[in-house]
């Protein structure tokens, strides 16, 4: 049984905007899945429909075998949602927010309090339990929303940009927490703008653009599609012109920095040999951008209006 099955899902808003044009998506149980796309691509609409916050125009959504139209309550019981925007009562206390959410799922108060303590401790918010939510930092508010989404212990957790505005240290600790949840058997679907995050955490990925899935595969296969990687080389001495290297595209960014496009078919040893022969001494090297980011930009650029080619659901 799949954790999430979406069939021919369409959404047209009242103002005529066609946000989803019939998407197909399957997320297997236990997966750590990334849903990526540029702003306005349809990610939040998709999540909104799955979590019953947005009415779909047509199509089918099934969560762990429960159809959202015919078994809505059972389907809702199975998912926890961490939205992009803070959506709790700002004047309520942290502990009350989590306990109240448990109550909405019919969890009795004593068990709700136990669960609230468990997740607030795990997310490092126990000391803040008596604080009003509005007094928390941005990172704490995000963690509060995760604790709240977990209090009914859902099988499928959907996080819409959970680490937006969170500092690097905290982001890493949240990654570890999410990996732990996934290892316990929970299916996790994540949208993020940090492509490094998707590459580090997720095994499968779908890219959505202009309301259509333009790529849906496992992370490894996707990254293999990357034909060219761009590297930045820092030179020991200033130069006035870029070297001429056969098989590589080279550009001089400034007097001590080269930008080199390396096709997948070429090996880096030859690059360094040729540079050394021309008296270019390389001190350090790094990727111009995250590999997934390069691929993402290319896929989205290919999918300009009128060129969209929806992908088959494969994962």
């Amino acid at each position, binding site marked *: 049984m799949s954790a999430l099955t979406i069939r021919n899902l369409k959404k047209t*808003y*009242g103002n005529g905007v066609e946000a989803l044009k019939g998407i197909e998506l399957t997320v297997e149980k236990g997966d750590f899945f990334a849903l990526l796309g540029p702003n306005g691509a349809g990610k939040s609409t998709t999540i*909104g429909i799955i*979590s*019953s*916050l*947005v*009415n779909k125009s047509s199509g089918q959504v099934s969560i762990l075998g429960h159809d959202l139209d015919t078994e*809505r*309550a*059972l389907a*809702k*019981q199975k*998912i926890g*949602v961490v*939205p992009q*925007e*803070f*959506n*709790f*009562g*700002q*004047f309520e206390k942290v502990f*009350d927010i989590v306990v*109240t*959410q448990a*109550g*909405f*799922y*019919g*969890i*009795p*108060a004593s068990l709700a309090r136990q669960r609230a303590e468990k997740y607030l401790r795990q997310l490092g918010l126990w000391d803040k339990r008596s604080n009003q939510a509005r007094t928390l930092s941005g990172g704490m508010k995000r963690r509060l929303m995760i604790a*709240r989404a977990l209090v*009914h212990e859902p099988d499928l957790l959907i996080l819409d940009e959970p680490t937006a505005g969170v500092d690097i240290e905290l982001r890493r600790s949240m990654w570890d927490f999410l990996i732990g949840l996934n290892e316990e058997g929970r299916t996790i679907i994540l949208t993020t703008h940090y492509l490094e995050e998707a590459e580090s955490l997720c095994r499968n990925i779908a890219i959505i653009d202009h309301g259509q899935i333009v790529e849906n595969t496992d992370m490894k296969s996707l990254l293999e599609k990357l034909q060219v990687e761009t590297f930045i080389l820092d030179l020991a001495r200033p130069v006035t012109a870029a070297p001429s290297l056969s098989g590589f595209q080279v550009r001089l960014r400034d007097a001590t920095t080269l930008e080199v496009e390396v096709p997948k078919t070429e090996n880096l040893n030859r690059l360094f040999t040729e540079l050394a022969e021309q008296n270019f001494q390389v001190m350090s090297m790094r990727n111009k951008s995250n590999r997934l980011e390069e691929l993402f930009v290319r896929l989205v650029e290919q999918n300009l209006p009128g060129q969209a080619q929806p992908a088959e659901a494969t994962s």
Partner: protein
Amino acid sequence: MSGYQQWVAFCTIVIKEIRRFTRIWPQTLLPPAITMTLYFVIFGNLVGQRIGDMGGFDYMQYIVPGLIMMSVITNSYGNVVSSFFSTKFQHSIEEMLVSPMPNYVILTGFVVGGMARGMAVGLIVSLLSLFFTHLSLQHLWITVSVVVMTSALFSLGGFLNALFARNFDDISIIPNFVLTPLTYLGGVFYSLDLLPDFWRAVTLVNPIVYMVNAFRYGVLGVSDVNVYASLGAILVFVVVFFALSLWLLNRGTGIRS
């Protein structure tokens, strides 16, 4: 969700609502107490002494039931309209919408929360009135029924207002420009017998007249209208408003795009 789980969810909303209006008691419970005390002092004592009897009672006794009912109406309405609109405004309504709670539980929870505030304020005002006059309940069950149904009806009204409201102006228009005039013209301060035939007929279109008079009948035993017809009409309105609210909630009006 099982029946027990729905009960837990319902209690969660009611407790949340009661916690909200008691936490901000200087905004919710104190102002009606002060306003109504002023009414008792000015209209009841100072002006009332010059008016003399009305409907067979001294003026203070005559207006107290109406003022209690006025408090119940405005506070039931005000609680739900502000609380439910705030949950929309802060998006915390999403906490409820993502849960498996049926919509009728959400609706009933908010309505009972509004009734709790309406009746709490009604009780405070009733206790305050005892400093100014003597009250003895003539018909206990009619009094209780009117208060319960009226607070339910105006809680539902507040809910409908909040569903359609898009900004804070929208939640103040109806209380200020519809509810307040209807309440003041609803026979709180005068008997309908004082009005010329034409204005009496016009006044009978005002639904608040029936609630105030039914409540006055429960407390004092006098009414300008048929009490049982009033109770029936309130009940019909409660059922219609509940059905309408639930239908809109199921459609997602004002809460889902």
